[in-house]
């Protein structure tokens, strides 16, 4: 069984987000780029499964859509332990176009399990995994909080709004994963970083697909009014404010 982990390249979550060119572009100055947190968890789980005896997982590959400048993020994933990587050499423009390009990677190889994070921390669309599955006409399981392979059979737990479902999933499929899939993301060790330099990154031709959406500009969230402080000796006042001023309780 071969696993393909799709990774997105996003600003570190502690980065202060700023925009340039009249708020039409992300200001990339000073941004530290990282692997999208959910993708990092997917990769961690994929590697755990590969190491688990009897799982039948032979290879863990990475797929990414982005220009050459995003390669350090792919190298990071290889340093964490992925065997090889595929990069579609084109700018990521929207979820639809990214998913169409990832579909090209899937078609170019032989993968049984394709993992995507539930969302990326930049555009928060929660769409690429589902779109990829539809492009491929594959089964998709969304909101996976647990993933295991036993005797070649894939077991997942899918989170519902108010519960969960335990499923057996036939391969090939697209798994869209969320919190719980792995405890902590794995960190690259020095040996992994050295080895990553020699691991292959295969270039894949971009799909002939245009994005469906156009971002016109970015807007900061509405500024919140300054905090009104209540005397800690008299917290009753807070209840009074919530009832009579905010009228929310």
């Amino acid at each position, binding site marked *: 069984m071969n696993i393909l982990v799709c990774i997105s390249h996003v600003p570190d979550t502690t980065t202060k*987000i700023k925009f340039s060119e009249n708020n039409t572009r992300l200001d990339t100055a000073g941004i530290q780029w990282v692997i999208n947190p959910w993708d990092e968890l997917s990769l961690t789980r994929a590697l755990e499964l590969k190491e688990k005896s009897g799982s039948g997982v032979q290879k863990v590959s990475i797929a990414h859509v982005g220009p050459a400048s995003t390669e350090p993020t792919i190298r990071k994933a290889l340093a964490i332990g992925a065997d090889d990587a595929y990069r579609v050499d084109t700018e990521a423009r929207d979820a639809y176009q990214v998913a169409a390009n990832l579909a090209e990677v899937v078609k170019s190889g032989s993968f049984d399990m394709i993992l995507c994070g539930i969302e990326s921390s930049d555009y928060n669309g929660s769409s690429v995994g589902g779109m990829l599955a539809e492009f491929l006409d594959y089964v998709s399981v969304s909101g996976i909080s647990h993933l295991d392979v036993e005797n070649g059979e894939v077991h997942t737990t899918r989170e519902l709004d108010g519960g969960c479902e335990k*499923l057996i999933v036939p391969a090939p499929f697209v798994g869209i994963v969320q919190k719980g899939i792995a405890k902590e993301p794995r960190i690259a060790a020095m040996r992994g970083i050295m080895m990553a330099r020699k691991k292959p990154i295969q270039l894949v031709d971009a799909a002939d697909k245009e994005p469906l959406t156009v971002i016109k500009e970015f807007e900061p969230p509405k500024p919140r009014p300054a905090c009104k402080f209540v005397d800690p000796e008299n*917290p009753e006042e807070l209840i009074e404010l919530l009832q009579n001023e905010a009228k929310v309780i």
Partner: protein
Amino acid sequence: MSVLVYTENWDGEFKKLSFELISFAVKLAEEMQTEVVALSVGKTKDEELKKLSQYGVKRILKVENEEVDQFDPQIYAKVLSEVAAREQASLVVMADNNTGKALAPRLSVRMKAALASGVSSMPDSLSPFVIKTRAFSGNAFAVTELPTEVKIVTIAQNSFDLEEKPSEAVIEDAGVDISGMKPKTVVKEVEKQTDQLLLTDAEIVVSGGRGMRSAENWAPIEELASLMNGATACSRPVSDEGWRPHEEHTGQTGKVISPNVYFAIGISGATQHLAGVSGSKYIIAINNDKEAPIFDAAQYGIVGDASKILPKLVDALKKAKSA
């Protein structure tokens, strides 16, 4: 032309979220000068379906074939695309919850329809169709144009007010052809939280952080929540420590919620935490560090020791309730 709303039901019953979807769609359809069609997938009683008409929908289509007993995104996407095409929907509306996240992207590719997800405000303009989506985990909105003929919008829970508009609705069978389609996944077990208020549904949420010091100190948080018919939540370190269950973790990698009131108690307000709660209408912070970033996000705050303040708050709330 029409606006098609996918109204999710839970074991045959609708909840507030379903009515929020209808209210949003009815308001938008008025501006677009078109009609709303509600689609219900899965077995539901007609009297339950009629509840949707309280919010202004006049036509309800239902799909009750046995093929949809199990939620299968492939089958559901086929149902939706068939109905959307037949109803000449120019807009499909659904919730930005687990179901919507599983379904909307598949539908988008199937219909080549541009998708805006996690929307919490009405469109900026209808022609061209421009709407704000959540971006950079709550640090910005992306003002996004959906230029395709059919558009899909998923809305954030608790972002749109219910608007009652009692009307008479016609209920019809959608008559989709899905016979022979079978879910390819096998469900082994289903666990449901039935009697508990879901964190994502709650209008008031009381959340505790590391400042609560230990799992034993949660009683006043639970009491405060139950006095206000709210739900309890926690920050990531708290669920990592095992003080509270993982389902309660709100924040970037946990649940993203947008209640009316969010109490952050002993939570410093790291960006990753705020990413999950910044959609709350009111944030109330209690923290002993007056420099904590949570106070920048809060409208009301108390600087002090939560263990001393909480019992007083509980008492004050009880008094206010009995007054």
